[in-house]
Structures are given as C-alpha cells and as structure tokens.
C-alpha cells in the first residue's frame, strides 16, 4: 500500500503542475501547439531529453544490460549522445529558423512547402502516425505492467487474477487519464513544464536507486566482483571461456532431464519404483523447486534407463521439454542425429506455454503476503502467478546460450538514433524554442544527461546477473529482463524506495507519452482538418477545440489497442525507430540539398517504407528479436532465421542500414533525373547569404 500511496501522490502532484501551467495558457492555437515559441534553453533541454528518454531509459537499459552485458551502453547510449546532438545541431536549429520564418507547426507543413507538393502530406501522414502508434502503445503497456508489478499484494481479496495488485488495464487507464488532463488543459506549455519536472524526477531517482542497490549488494566493488566471478561475459562484448563451459555443462544436464521427463511422462516407458525414488532422493542433496525431478533424472541416467530412447524420441523430448511447436513434417535426419540447441530454437515456442505453471503450482499460488503454512513459517509465503510462470520457465526450458556482440551490428546500430531527426513530436518541440541560441544547452548537455541516466542503470542490470539473496541467485534463468530493475528494488530495498522508483519509471514514460499525444493531435488538426477544411473556415478557438478532441481520440484509441496486449509490442520499438531513421535522408536533403525534387522525395519515402515492410515481414513481424541482415557464409546475403545464432566471422547488419541506403539511393537518383524545384522555392529555403 505504501508504494500505491507514493505513486498516487506523484500523479496528483503532476495534475497540480498541469493545472498550474494551464493558467499560463494564452488561449491561442500557437500557444497550445508551440507554447508561442517561448521555451528557453533549460526547459528545451529538459523537455527534449524527457521526450527522447522513454521507459527504456530506466527499465529497458537495465533489462538490456542484464541480457546482453555492458555492450548495450556503447550500442544504445554513447551512440545516441553523438547522433542526437548531431540532429539537434544540423536539423533542429535549421528547422527552427524556417519554422520561425514561415510559421510551421508540423513536419508535413514544411515538406509541403519545400517540395511544392500538397499530396506529400497524404503519403507521409499515415506513415508518421503508423510509426508513432506502436511507440505510444509501448509506453501505455509498460506503465500498466510496472504498477501491477510493484503493487502485488496491496489488496486483501480484490484482483486475485493480477496477484492482488492494481490490474495493468486500470493502471494504464489512470496514466492515460493523467497525461490527457495536463496535455488537454496545458497544451505544449503544460507538456514542457511537466516534462521538466518529470525528467528531474527520473534522473534523480535513477541515481538514488543505484546507490541504494549498490549498498545492499555489499558495495560497488563487491557487486562488480561477483559478476567477474560468475558472469564475466557481461563485462565485455565477447563470450568468456568459463561462461561457455558453464553453459555447455548446464545444457548437457538439461538434455538428460528432457530425456527422463519425456520417457516417464509422455512415453511412460520409465517408471521408478517407490524404493528407487527413495534411493534417488537420498543421494541428491540440493533443494530447489524441482529437486525431485533432478534426483530422479540422475538416478535414471546412472542406472542406464535412458539408453532405450531412440534418436527420434530424444529429439521429440528436446522439442517437448523446451515447449517448442514440433515440425509439421518430420525432417529426414530426425532419426539420424540429435538436435543441437540452435536447431531446437528454430521451432517457435508455444505462445503462453509458461502459463502451464498455474496448473502445476496451483497449490502454491495465493496472496503473496500470506504464509503457505502458518504452523511452518519456513515454507514461506504463497507464490504470485508471475512467480509460478518464472519457476516453470526456469525448471523446464533449456538454458540460454551466451553470445557475443557482433562489431558490425554494433557499428550499424549507429543508424538507429538518426530516428530523432524525423520524430514528429521532437520536430514540434524544436519549434517551441525562444531563439536559435536556446538549442546550445540541449546540444551540449544531452550526451552528459544520457550518461547520468544510463551508466547507473547498465551497472545495476549487469550486477543483477550475479546478485544473490539468502545464498541463492536473485534471478532465475529466463527471468523477463524488463522486470529486473523493479524486482530488484522490491526484493532488497524498502517499500518507500520502491514507490519512489516506480514514480521515476512512470515519469520517464509519461514525459514521452505527453509529447506524442499532443503531436498526433496537432498533426490531425493542422495537416488534415485545417489544411483540407480551409484555413479561414475555423477561428483560433475552434482550432484549439479540434486539437483537444483529437488528443482525446488518440489517447482513447491507444488505450483501446493496449487492452489487446499485442504480441511483440516491446520488440517493435527498434522497428519504429528504424522506420523514422529510414526517412532521415529526406529531412537532411530537404534542408541542405537544393537539387532535391518532389519526385525524389516520393521515391525516398516509398523506398523507405517498402523496405521497412519487406524486412519487417522477413523478421516474422518482429518475432525474430535478433533479426539482422547477414553478409558472408554460405550465401552472400541472408536473413537471421528463428533461433539462429550467427557464427563469428559473418557480418551482421541492422535492417535500418539497408533501409537508409535504399531510401538515399532512390532519392538521389530520381532527383537527378527530374526537374529541379522552382527558383522561388529555392530562394525561400536557400536564401543568398
């Protein structure tokens, strides 16, 4: 309940700030959408930084570091420090200058003018909205998941299906409501103030959380040295030999367990007698959730009971144990060679397989604050449904293989942060600046701010791989990476800090949602209603009403979509960014290349979106989370297949590289063979110095 109280107080504070900033609203559409170009350096820095740092800044950074190691800082953070500031410097200042001169509010207004094409808006509009919606969904769904996770057990009898915590759908609804209130009343000015407040909140709380976790893990040195001892690969970008050896041993044990489990439960060809089981249990000392199964497995192996399985049955066992969907037609070599771990992973895992844990551990699931056996407190409290799923995953699925970070993937990831050049919500923030000089502070401070937020979170994520609680690993295998930070805080700190950290995570989420909601409402109003309805048809007050109605509409639509909990929405993030990045050549050329033509721009957009759709389809709609375009090996070019681990020596590239090269090439070639823009247009956008 303490966490819930702190979160509620934070949201009320935010509403008060929103209402306060709405009193500064001047009542014009320019003020509602662009804060009347009055935002100074500090507010611009905080609102731009808050907008670019989503839930990923705290939750995703620690989760990715838990999964991949420290390499994620270089791949995602220090690269963004260089590229984001590059975009602010090269694009932001120029966009602001033109926006000031010609009164632009949206990207589409600029492109219509610069490219002498009204219809470019019709092409760009669905693309920009289509790429922003999944980005919004990530924020809305993440907020629901975080609040649910930290409020487990807050209610005595309500919401049992959600571990007695706030249901995600209710938390998402409240978050959407709070953001809607301050955006609705305060417009861009309210958003800028709220972003500044929230950015300060998540930066300070991120650093505080880091220090408290470090202390609870025995200090900075102890926490890092535990990683050196147990998971050295997480401290570098290649695989340490000891990690590889540990994995191979663990995988060998898993294969033995798969054979025994399959033979005893599916084939019913092995059945230990009560006497044999007693002997097996006596010989096995460790006590973990599935210790009896492990004891029986070792006994069966020692006594040669597993030798009766054929190779085909062994392969069936592996696929079954790992909850994979068996092949529809049995491959020719199914009965000739045992599947490797990589070949097991080529079969997709059954959706929701882990929910089998609800049935298996039904007697252990209950209110997480009540003792299972009041007469024997050592038995512990009841499990949450999340824990039942986690124990199922950890005890049934094959261990994850350690993998290296490919230098080429690392290099081509540099193209992803170029997306900020085409984010419509950032474009709108750029136009709010009071003067071009307002950009100087954001350009310089942005890389430092990224470092302040990311370094502590990456370290916490890496520490989590080796942290222990009461002599046991804090996180079992297959623990969801995005839940690491909140779970760690909940396990080793006080409810008060958990409440504050949750407020920080929500701050990071809401400081992006607000700008995106406002931006989508602005695009609908300015680029569709006002543009096609006629500028003189609506007065300023009506334009504000229309914008507010669209903002309500987009918030409602996003919330509605989030209720369906679309699969892979969290892996969609990098695809959304890649889509925006693929349009980066267009904004760069529009600002700096006189020879860019209308046809060249169309070619750029159509090529970018065609490549995006093709590659997105090839990635099985983001289901292949490590999807790359690979050069070398048996064929010159290939795409990552499900479960495939790319061998060292093959060049892995992010799909965004192909998209950018393709759209750039199409834009240049078509522009060079079509008629240049009119001289009046060039004079407007490239005035003689």
């Amino acid at each position, binding site marked *: 309940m303490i966490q819930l109280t702190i979160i509620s107080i934070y949201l009320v504070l935010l509403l008060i700030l929103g209402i306060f900033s709405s009193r500064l609203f001047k009542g014009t559409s320019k003020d509602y959408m662009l804060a009347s*170009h009055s935002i100074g350096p500090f507010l611009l820095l905080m609102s731009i930084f808050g907008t670019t740092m989503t839930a990923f800044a705290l939750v995703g950074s620690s989760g990715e570091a838990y999964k991949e190691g420290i390499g994620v800082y270089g791949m995602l953070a220090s690269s963004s420090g260089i590229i984001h500031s590059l975009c602010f410097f090269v694009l932001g200042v120029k966009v602001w200058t033109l926006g000031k001169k010609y009164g632009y509010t949206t990207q589409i207004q600029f492109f219509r003018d610069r490219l002498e094409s009204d219809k470019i808006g019709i092409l760009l509009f669905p693309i920009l909205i289509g790429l922003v919606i999944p980005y919004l969904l990530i924020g809305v769904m993440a907020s629901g998941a975080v609040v649910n996770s930290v409020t487990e057990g807050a209610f005595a009898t309500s919401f049992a299906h959600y571990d007695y915590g706030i249901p995600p759908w209710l938390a998402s609804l409240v978050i959407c409501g709070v953001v809607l209130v301050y955006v609705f009343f305060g417009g861009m000015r309210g958003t800028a103030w709220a972003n500044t407040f929230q950015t300060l909140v998540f930066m300070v709380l991120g650093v505080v959380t880091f220090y408290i976790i470090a202390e609870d893990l025995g200090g900075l040195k102890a926490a890092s040295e535990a990683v050196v001892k147990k998971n050295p690969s997480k401290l570098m970008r290649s695989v340490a030999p000891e990690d590889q050896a540990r994995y191979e041993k663990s995988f060998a044990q898993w294969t033995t367990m798969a054979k025994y489990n399959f033979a005893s439960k599916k084939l019913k060809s092995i059945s230990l007698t009560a006497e044999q089981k007693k002997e097996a249990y006596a010989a096995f000392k460790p006590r973990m959730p599935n210790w009896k199964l492990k004891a029986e497995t070792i006994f069966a192996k020692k006594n040669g009971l597993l030798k009766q399985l054929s190779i085909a049955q062994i392969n069936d066992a592996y696929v079954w144990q790992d909850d994979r969907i068996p092949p529809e037609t049995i491959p020719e070599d199914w009965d000739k060679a045992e599947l490797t771990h990589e070949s097991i992973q080529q079969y997709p895992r059954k959706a929701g397989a882990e929910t089998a844990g609800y049935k298996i551990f039904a007697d252990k699931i209950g209110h997480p604050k009540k003792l299972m056996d009041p007469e024997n407190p050592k038995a512990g409290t009841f499990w949450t449904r999340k824990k039942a799923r986690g124990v199922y995953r950890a005890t049934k699925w094959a261990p994850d293989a350690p993998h290296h970070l490919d230098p080429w993937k690392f290099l081509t990831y540099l193209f992803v942060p170029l997306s900020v050049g085409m984010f419509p919500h950032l474009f709108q923030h750029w136009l709010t600046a009071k003067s071009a000089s307002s950009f100087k502070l954001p350009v310089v401070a*942005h890389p430092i701010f990224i470092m302040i937020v990311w370094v502590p979170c990456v370290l916490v994520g890496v520490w989590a791989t080796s942290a222990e609680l009461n002599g046991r690993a804090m996180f079992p295998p297959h623990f969801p990476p995005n839940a690491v930070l909140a779970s760690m805080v909940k396990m080793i700190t006080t409810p008060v800090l958990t409440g504050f950290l949750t407020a920080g995570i929500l701050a990071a989420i809401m400081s992006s949602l607000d700008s995106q909601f406002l931006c989508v409402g602005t695009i609908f109003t300015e680029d569709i209603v006002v543009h096609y309805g006629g500028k003189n048809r609506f007065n300023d007050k009506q334009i504000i009403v229309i914008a507010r109605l669209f903002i309500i509409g987009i918030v409602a639509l996003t919330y509605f979509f989030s209720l369906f909990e679309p699969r892979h929405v969290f892996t969609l993030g990098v695809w959304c960014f890649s889509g925006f990045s693929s349009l980066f050549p267009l904004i760069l050329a529009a600002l700096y290349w006189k020879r860019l033509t209308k046809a060249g721009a169309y070619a750029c957009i159509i090529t970018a979106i065609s490549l995006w759709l093709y590659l997105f389809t090839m990635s099985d709609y983001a289901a292949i989370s490590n999807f790359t375009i690979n050069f070398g090996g048996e064929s010159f070019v290939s795409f990552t297949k499900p479960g495939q681990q790319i061998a060292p020596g093959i060049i892995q590239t992010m799909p965004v590289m192909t998209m950018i090269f393709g759209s750039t090439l199409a834009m240049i070639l078509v522009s060079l063979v079509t008629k240049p823009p009119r001289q009046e247009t060039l004079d407007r956008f490239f005035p003689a110095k």
Partner: protein
Amino acid sequence: MKYVIWGLVLLLLVLHQDFWFWDDATLLFGFMPIGLVYHAGISVAAAATWLLATIYIWPVDVAEDAPVS
C-alpha cells in the same frame, strides 16, 4: 575551424567502435568495467565536441536570432 570540428565528430564516431576493450573485463576503480568507462568517456568527449561546435561553428547569426514575436 569548421573542418577541425567536423573532423572531431568523425573521429568520435570511429573511436566509438572501440578497438581496444572488446574482450576486456578489467574493473577500474575496483567496480567500473573498462569498456563502460571507455564509452562514458566517449559521452563526455561528445559533449566537449558539441560545445566547441556551438562556440565556433554555430549556424545562426546573432542578427537572425531575434526571439520570435
């Protein structure tokens, strides 16, 4: 000066590829992985480079930069 600063930006992008600490799990100051220290250094160097850019090659003249009214 323009070429010097854009040269520095290019150098940063090259240095960002990190040719030295890819396989190194050494801890500096007893707790900081050397690869993370290196990339935090890249972040600081990026801020310094952009500071130089705002001082020496700022693209907007003061005369052009009157606050919007």
